[in-house]
Every structure is written in structure tokens, then in C-alpha cells.
């Protein structure tokens, strides 16, 4: 086990607001919002919204065997993986150099992506019986299917693990991928988040009063009334920094620290605030940073009033800023909706581009912040320090924080 610093050498994503990191950044700068009234046949119950990728065709991005059979979340994950490998120069078909199979690992943050396929398969069992259901659907209805399909599709033999930490999945997956690389289990790994909302989960959330009407979806705003789901696939390629440097790879940034905590009462603002603040403090301590080292916050806030409040309060506590000089805070879910397993990865990629461009995208639809004391990006905001804090929370109570850096001093090999 080493304490090797882990570099990010490739990024890829497929989202309702673009299929390249720069296209997403441009859309976020323009405050675009992809939330539209539900397309689901269950929509008649209410006016809730969600963000879908229009005319998503996985074969436009990647060509792996069995693609047509895979569930939509798996297909989103495959596309993001391909785009990230291409970006990292590890895709032979696009002129890069493929890694030996035993040197490439996969960590998939897609634990709830199986729901759509599993519900369909199980409904078949209950209605027409096992003899009339397609047995080939069983392995792809397992929650492990995305990790299996992606490893198989890209010949990744070092390892494949699929995480199911809900909204904390992507950040936990990055921490796990970094740990597996630091202990020498692979030369590189793709950490990929993918999510698509199953109609039943959307309906359950609506009936639980958790969804906002499509035209009233706001994040961190006094007018927030609930969340909206959005689908996404997003992936980063991780490599030990020395190795990335040695092969002359383009460096998007480095992973500087992680923190993960738990609260048994995620819907109680005080408890959630404390747990998230503790996760951020753990990450800062691991990186040897203080709150004032953070130049951008890519927040996980999703429009759920209690969650937004807790997150804003936690960030205000951690950043500890007074006066006018405030770290810009962005929240990409305002434009993309809540993509649960994939969300942290989308936030991380958006943060990396923002650090690269030195401009924080504004929070679409935010007019009147509910909690004072933060540097909410109401318009594109300049980034002084190219270091970002990314936050995420799960419905079950996990709180996760990730620190990213593009500062020369951090990406330098000691």
C-alpha cells in the first residue's frame, strides 16, 4: 500500500445538457435547465418533472456486444466509460493505446440502476411465469449487471466492483478506485456513475411528496419545493500520478481527499448538517487543507428543502467565511436534476471543467438563496483557487465529500 497521489486523466459523460464536459459547462453557464414534465405513463398523477436525454442511442458512442439487451443505466455507463477512455488516450480504436486487460479496473456507481430491468423481469415472472420469460434477462436484472457488462465490454480484468450507496455512490466509488490504485491492484481504473429513474421510483417519490412541479423546480432557493430526477452517465479515468506523468498523459486534476460519514436521521436538517460538515472536515484533514483553500464548491443540493438547508448550513460552517470574499458555490442538479448514483460524478466533472476554465457555472433558477453566508453563483463567477469541494448525500444517510485540485502545486510529482 502506498500513499501515491491519484490523477484524473480522462472524463466522459452523457447528460440531458450535453455529451462532452465542455458542452455541459457551456450549457450550465447559460443556466440551461433540462427538467421537463414527466414523460412516463405514470405522469398523470401530477406535474412533476424529470430530465431525460433526448433520443439517447448508446450505439452512437460505443459498440459492445449485448448492448441492446442491457438496461438503460448500464448503457449510459458503457457510453460514459468509452468516452472517458478515449479522453484518457486509452482507447485503441480512437488512436490511443489500450491498457493490458489485467491492468484496467472498473468501479461502477450504479447500484440502483438495475431497478427498471428487475421490475420488468419480475413482472414477467409474476404474470406469465418463469417458463415464458427470457432467461437471458436474469443476469442483467441483477444490480451487479452494470459492473459485469462494463468489465466485459472493455475487457477490464484487474477488478470490477459495483456500488450501491445511493446519492453517495459516485464519491464513494472514486474513493474506492483511488484506494485500489494506491495499493497497486491496477494501473488505471474507470470510475463510472450511471442512473436512470425507474418509473415506479419516480411515482413513489411523487407520492411521498418529494418531487417539485416541473415549472417550480428550484435548488437552494427560498422557493424550493422538492427535487426532480435526471438521468446521466459519467466517468473518470484514474491513474497513479507518477504513472500518468510518465506516459505524458493530459492531467485533468488530482484527487486530494475524501470523507464519508453517516447520520441515522438524514431528513433532520441539524443532524444532516453535522454529518455533512464532518464528512467535509474529514476530507479537508486528509488533504491537509483548510476551508479557505477551497476555490469552488460543487454542491449536491437537489431542491429538497430540508436537504438544501442542511447542505448550505454545513458548507457555511466548513468554509467559515465572513465578508465579501466568498468561495463560489455551484449546484448542477438545478439544471440536470437528481441523478442519484451518477450525481457525484457529474458534479466532479463539472467542477474539473470549471477549475480548468476558472469560472464557476451559475445555479440555474436561483433567485433568492434561502440560507445566507455562502457565495452562491448567481451568474458565472471567477474561480481564484483551482481547488474544489464536491459534496453528496444519500437517502439512507451517507454524507460524502471529495476534494479535487488542478493547482500546479498539487499535480506536481514530489
Amino acid at each position: 500500500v502506498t500513499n501515491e497521489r491519484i490523477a484524473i486523466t480522462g472524463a466522459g459523460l452523457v447528460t440531458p445538457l450535453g455529451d462532452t464536459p465542455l458542452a455541459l459547462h457551456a450549457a450550465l453557464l447559460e443556466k440551461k435547465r433540462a427538467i421537463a414534465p414527466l414523460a412516463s405513463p405514470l405522469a398523470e398523477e401530477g406535474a412533476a418533472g424529470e430530465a431525460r436525454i433526448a433520443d439517447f442511442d448508446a450505439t452512437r458512442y460505443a459498440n459492445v456486444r449485448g448492448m441492446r439487451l442491457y438496461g438503460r443505466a448500464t448503457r449510459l455507463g458503457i457510453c460514459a466509460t468509452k468516452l472517458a477512455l478515449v479522453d484518457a488516450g486509452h482507447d485503441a480504436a480512437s488512436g490511443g493505446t489500450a491498457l493490458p486487460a489485467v491492468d484496467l479496473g472498473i468501479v461502477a456507481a450504479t447500484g440502483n440502476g438495475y431497478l427498471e430491468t428487475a421490475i420488468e423481469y419480475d413482472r414477467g415472472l409474476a404474470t406469465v411465469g418463469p417458463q415464458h420469460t427470457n432467461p437471458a434477462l436474469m443476469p442483467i436484472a441483477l444490480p451487479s449487471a452494470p459492473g459485469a457488462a462494463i468489465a466485459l465490454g472493455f475487457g477490464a480484468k484487474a477488478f470490477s466492483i459495483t456500488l450501491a450507496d445511493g446519492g453517495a455512490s459516485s464519491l464513494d466509488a472514486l474513493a474506492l478506485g483511488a484506494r485500489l490504485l494506491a495499493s497497486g491492484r491496477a494501473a488505471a481504473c474507470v470510475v463510472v456513475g450511471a442512473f436512470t429513474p425507474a418509473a415506479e421510483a419516480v411515482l413513489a417519490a411523487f407520492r411521498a411528496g418529494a418531487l417539485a412541479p416541473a415549472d417550480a423546480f428550484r435548488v437552494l432557493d427560498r422557493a424550493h419545493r422538492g427535487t426532480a430526477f435526471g438521468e446521466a452517465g459519467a466517468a473518470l479515468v484514474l491513474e497513479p500520478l507518477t504513472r500518468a506523468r510518465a506516459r505524458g498523459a493530459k492531467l485533468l486534476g488530482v484527487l486530494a481527499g475524501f470523507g464519508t460519514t453517516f447520520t441515522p436521521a438524514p431528513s433532520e436538517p441539524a443532524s444532516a448538517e453535522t454529518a455533512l460538515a464532518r464528512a467535509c472536515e474529514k476530507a479537508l484533514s486528509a488533504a491537509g487543507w483548510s476551508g479557505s483553500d477551497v476555490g469552488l464548491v460543487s454542491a449536491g443540493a437537489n431542491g429538497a428543502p430540508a436537504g438544501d438547508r442542511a447542505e448550505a448550513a454545513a458548507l457555511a460552517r466548513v468554509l467559515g467565511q465572513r465578508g465579501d470574499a466568498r468561495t463560489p458555490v455551484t449546484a448542477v442538479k438545478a439544471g440536470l436534476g437528481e441523478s442519484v448514483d451518477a450525481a457525484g460524478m457529474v458534479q466532479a466533472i463539472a467542477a474539473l471543467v470549471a477549475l480548468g476554465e476558472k469560472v464557476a457555472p451559475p445555479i440555474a433558477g436561483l433567485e433568492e438563496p434561502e440560507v445566507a453566508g455562502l457565495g452562491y453563483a448567481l451568474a458565472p463567477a471567477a474561480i481564484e483557487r483551482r481547488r474544489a469541494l464536491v459534496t453528496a448525500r444519500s437517502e439512507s444517510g451517507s454524507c460524502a465529500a471529495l476534494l479535487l485540485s488542478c493547482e500546479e502545486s498539487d499535480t506536481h510529482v514530489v
Partner: protein
Amino acid sequence: VTRRVVITGCGLVTAAGTELDRVWAALMDGTCFIRPLREAEFVAPGMEGLMGAPVELPASDALDAAVDTDARRDRCAQLALAAARRAFADAALPREARADAGVALGTTMGQERQIADLSDRGAASGGPAAVDAGFGARSDVQRLAGVVAAQEGLGGPVLVNVTACASGNAATAWAYDLVATGTADVMAAGGADTFTRLIYCGFSRMGALSKGICHPFDKDRDGVSFGEGAAFIVLEELEHARRRGARIYAELAGYGISNDAYHLTAPDPNGEGFVRAARQALATTGTDPAAVGYVSAHGTGTQYNDLAEARTMKALFGERAPRVPISSVKSMLGHTNGAASAIENVVCALALVNQTVPPTANLRTPDPEMDLDLVRDKGRPIALDVCLNLSAGFGGFNVCTVLKRAP
């Protein structure tokens, strides 16, 4: 700097019971718990004469109504909680040490019953009406570990992986890393799964479900028998455990991991990925293959798995392969999917403590390809310092752990 990681608590919930001593005695005796299932225990549509190894939980393990009012549909959370509770009680971990302690859990499909419940109620009431407000939260896989953390007062990392039947070992590997690298001092690691109709029906259609009782390594083996179960071990940094005077079962020395990237369901027939994971487990823990005294096989009883595993043994141990004791407790407890390798980590820890290894039950005529030291019928006393616990899952996932005698 890598810190040493030891096991200071074990919790088991299996068809053989929930008390470590009794489970151990039953396993040593070669008692098979696979039997015809009663309708109240489990049914799968269109299937009759189902066999399995069900768990009978004490009434004191009744699911808290705050978790779910329907213990049948939330059976997996109930099993996970029952095992975790026992592991923490066994570790006698003080409450204050729990604020930064976490839990890593693996499951193959622990929330499948929430989906089955939804489609059954949907069939009865006509679709969307069956979707209740709680379905989203209940079907969230992470909730299995969230329930454990909430009930046991944990404030550290709560991590869930779904790496098919290698999930329990994947959780253990993850928790090991967190303790070994200093991110946490204490982590519970384990797995849980219950009977699921999706897996029964799927295995049946694929011809991988035994028609009777599974018999791993037998020439007439005809597939898997499933079991219910959950298991957790409490992992603790060695000095942390010593300072509080904790009983130490064994050292978790480390792990190896790989993927076959060969097929969505079939393992690589030559066990190439399995061998890589096992070799990595031995190499990264500084273990001479000659020191391995017992191998806890994945041993599911399918043609493919057992053959790949025998080939793995030969690649790993060479000429010594026929002299390395190996067995599969799945022959007694059934294949508990994501819980299996977690249960087998407890089995290895108990084997190291008791200096006895468990047998494979129901092994009548060993497959000639399995020219291994197959421990059969009854447990065998041996001088044991190192165990290797193999696990694999659909999708080519392989994770192996190495356990050593308590330092």
C-alpha cells in the same frame, strides 16, 4: 504504512442457527440444512418442490416497525441487522468507539423482495396503484447497511456493494483497506441475502439449480442449492483491539481481486481470473502458498464453478494441490449469494481458533478432476495458520481473502 487488521467479533445468521458454538458444532458434524421449503418460507411463481436452507430467527429479532411493518418483504434487512447486532455484541465494542466506525455490506439482490412485493400487489390491484410512497426508500439497496448503521449507532462510512456472489468478500476487502490505511479504526464487514424468486427462476431456466440437494465436487453434481443468511465480522486495527483488551479471533491479512471479463454468467473455464485473485491475495499478504492450510472453496456445486476451482487449486499450489484441505460449507448452509463469502470468513476465523476445518457434506463420488484433499462428511482437526477464502460471482467477479492465526 499498512496497519494490521484483526477480527474481534463475529455474527452469523444461517440455517444452522445464530449462535456461533452451535453453528460450528453442526458444521463439524456435517449436518445439511437444505430441505424442502414450506410455502410460508418461500414460493416462486410456476415452480414447485423448492429446496433451500432457510433461516429461523428468534422472536427477539423481529423487525422494528420503524424499519418496515412487513418483515416478509424486508427479510434481507432483518437478516443483515440480526447478524450485525450479534457481531457488535460479540466484539463488545464500547458505544463511544462507534461514532467513527462504519459498515461495509455486500448483497447480490437483497432488495428483490421489495420488487416482488410491488409486482404482486400490482398484479392484484392494477399497476401504478401498488406503488406506495415508501417504495423508493425501501428498494434502495444502500438501506440494508443504513438500517444496520442507524440501529447500531455507527457514524462512519456506510458502504454497499453489489458484486454478485463475491459481494461479501468485496465488502470485507473494502473495509480492510479502510482500517489498514487508517481511514477507520473499526469497520463491520459482511453480507446478507434471502431467497429471491428472480434468482431461483433464473437459475432454474439456466439449468444451474440443483434438482435435489447440492453436492459440490461430486461427479454427479447438478447445480446450486440456495440458502438464506447474513454474516458480519468486526474488523479492528490490531493496537486498537489490544488496547481495549478485545478477544482476537484471527488476523485478516488482506485480499486479492480480479475480474474474468469472460462472460456475463459463466466463469473462465480455466479459472484464470480466480488464479490471479488468489495469487494477488497471497502475494500482497506476504503469504507463501506452502503456508496455506485450508481453502474455503466457493464450491457452489455447478459443473462450471467446481471445475474452474479445481483448476485454480492446481495452478495455485502445483504438486501440493492434492494435499491442501478444501471444503464448501455451501453443501450444508446452501449458497447464500452475497452473504456466502461473509459467512465463510467467519468459518475461516472459527477454523483458526478451533484448529479444525469443516467438511463438504453430500459428497458421494468425487469428480476425478477434483483430485484434491476434499474434507468430507465430518470436520477434521489440523494445525492451521492460514486460510484462503475464495469467492466468485456472476459477471466474472473474484475476491479472495487471507486469514491468519491471531497474532
